């Protein structure tokens, strides 16, 4: 659930040095793949999308693979569930929330011959990879759409927690909106939860009451976009395509697509080519997918498609330099022509024009 990920300054210290396992690449005929989910598979958001990835493995690899999942695993008590998967003959184990980081490291040390994959974390080992997605690329696109379509020039944003990934998402969203509408303003409400339809819905209503006519969300339930639908306003789906919850309000959705990655990693274990890696893919890698652009005028749709293509081809980076902070000072540009990955992954500032403060 903690879809946030950091390495940067931490990388050196954090990559846990394990004795080389010497597990020479070995092809296998049939493998077992296990998943640990933080929420119920039916959340229609974060865990649901990971489960779609699990099903994609079964579909792609047929009888060469069998899969298992354990759902609603509390982060503070997850070590046992992870170890259970390791002990029951699973060859590849995905732990799909930031809070599973320490337990995954501990279990990975104990079982050097099993491959582990931890979503959104920053600690790796010879048998433990990390992976996450550049959702902020999609957020730049929906920012442009919202900036173009807003009539009140005020956009609402329901955030989960002020962690770097969410902050980077707000910045990318606002930079997108600003690029097409210099007068746009943004209001942020923190729900302090990843999944709590009641709280998320209340946050959305509070924003709508303040005259917001476009609603973006970085929480996992369809409640915010449903609130937009009920008031005849617009919103964007999160994690999965939420069109069926808000057929009139959803302009597009930023869909987490783990399927391609999961299938590729399972194949790598089958043919013995699996290596410990850090993967951070975006629109180009198909880890982030925009659901069909709907309920918008043709010119807005065309603009969104062009932006999507530009980001995919690498022509456009949402954090291209210069990026100006809230205080009007330019942020040091550590990447080539754009902020570096480390700067984005550890983002802890708002860009200029956001009249709000990050809760500390």
């Amino acid at each position, binding site marked *: 659930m*903690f879809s*946030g990920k*950091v390495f*940067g*300054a*931490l990388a050196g210290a954090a990559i846990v040095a394990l004795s080389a396992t010497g597990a020479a690449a070995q092809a296998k005929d049939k493998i077992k793949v*296990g998943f640990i989910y933080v929420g*119920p598979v039916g959340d229609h958001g974060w865990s649901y999308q990971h489960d779609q990835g699990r099903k994609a493995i079964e579909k792609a690899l047929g009888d060469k693979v069998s899969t*298992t*999942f*354990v*759902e*609603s695993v*509390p*982060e*503070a*008590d997850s*070590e*046992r*569930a992870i*170890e*259970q*998967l390791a*002990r*029951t003959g699973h060859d590849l184990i995905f732990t799909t929330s*930031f*809070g599973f980081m*320490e337990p995954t490291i501990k279990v990975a040390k104990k079982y050097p011959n099993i491959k582990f994959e931890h979503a959104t974390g920053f600690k790796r080992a010879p048998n433990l990879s990390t992976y996450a997605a550049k959702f902020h690329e999609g957020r730049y696109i929906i920012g442009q759409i919202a900036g173009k379509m807003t009539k009140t020039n005020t956009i609402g944003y329901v955030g989960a*927690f*002020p*962690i*770097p990934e969410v*902050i980077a998402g707000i910045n990318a969203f606002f930079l997108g909106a600003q690029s097409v509408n210099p007068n746009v303003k943004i209001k942020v409400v923190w729900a*302090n939860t990843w999944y709590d339809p009641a709280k998320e819905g209340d946050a959305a209503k509070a924003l709508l009451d303040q005259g917001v006519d476009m609603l973006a969300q970085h929480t996992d339930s369809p409640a915010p976009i449903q609130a937009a639908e009920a008031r005849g306003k617009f919103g964007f789906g999160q994690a999965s395509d939420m069109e069926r919850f808000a057929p009139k309000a959803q302009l597009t959705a930023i869909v987490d697509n783990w399927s391609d990655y999961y299938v590729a990693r399972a194949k790598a274990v089958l043919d013995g080519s699996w290596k410990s890696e850090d993967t951070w893919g975006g629109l180009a890698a198909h880890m982030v997918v925009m659901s069909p652009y709907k309920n918008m005028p043709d010119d807005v749709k065309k603009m969104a498609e062009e932006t999507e293509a530009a980001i995919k081809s690498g022509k456009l980076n949402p954090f291209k330099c210069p990026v100006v902070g809230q205080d009007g000072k330019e942020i040091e540009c550590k990447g080539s022509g754009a902020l570096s990955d480390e700067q984005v*992954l*550890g983002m*802890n500032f708002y860009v200029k024009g956001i009249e709000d403060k990050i*809760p*500390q």
Partner: protein
Amino acid sequence: MRFELTPRTNASVGMRVLASVAAFITAFLIAGLVIWIMGRSPVAAFDVYVLQPLSDPWAIQELIVKATPMALIAIGLSYCFRANLWNIGAEGQYVIGAVLGSWLALKTHGTDAGFWVLPAMLLLGIVGGALYGLIPAFLKTRFGVNEILTSLMLVYVAQLVLDYLVRGPWRDPKGFNFPQSVTFDPAATLPPVFEAGRVHYGAVFAVIAVLVTAVVLGRTLFGYRLKLTGDAPRAARFAGFSSRATTMAVFAISGGLAGLAGISEVAGQIGQLQPSISPGYGFTAITVAFLGRLNPIGILIASLVVALTFIGGESAQILLKLPLDLTQAFQGILLMCVLAADALVSYRIRLTTRGGGK
């Protein structure tokens, strides 16, 4: 026509034990039926839920780890419940104990403070939980406020305090805004009982709490006072027992043990503070206390049984692809059966046809 409950005067100890066994068998039969309707083998389910965990040394260790906080909290709750005082807020006392104990761990982090850190942390955990437990007790004795409401609502206050601390002042400064504290130093970590195992000293504390409680309840005047206050409050008053002092004492004991469970879990199992440090142990412990019939040994057994349903539930998801909801339903069925069996032993059910009332 209606049912009437009349108390039995001759319910023997043997009958009560037999009723417990019957309750367990009934619960397993009901669960087996559900599993059979779902098209799976109830025999295989019983094997995965119960037999495998009990025949595997690793699973037995995990059982103890999981049972430890529940046993500690439930033992504390038994003091309150025996005196007919309803402390529903053990979850909050657990959190505050963990917070106060962790304060020292974070304060001494990175210094070479010695061996005294850990005992001091445990002590702070107990003090924190006890003080937090005393709030509803004070409100009850001073103003007559219902302790069920205050203790329950203070749970949310405690959780929000923890939330604030790990997102704010106690956040790991090198953690890029992620809501968690630094990982505790070895001096602030509760060591495993066996080399490289996961069972930490919290389990030992739980056993000590059980033994001490058995003596206190069975052999001391205080134990007698509790029972009397619970069963016959008027008689207790005539005997000169102060209900105010009893209320304060049991809430302090109960909160203190919940606090000890909290700091043991954080220093032993988790190793750092996080926004969530308990999957509801404080509430599950209420079930455990009643499953164990408020008897110390019974509670120890009940905590292991409930831990077994958690671990068996995970195995069932992995090996039989049975949903998590089934595990939670089974816990409910088990409690209902035990309480029903208890009622049937204590009371006789009679169907009367006399037109009662209107």
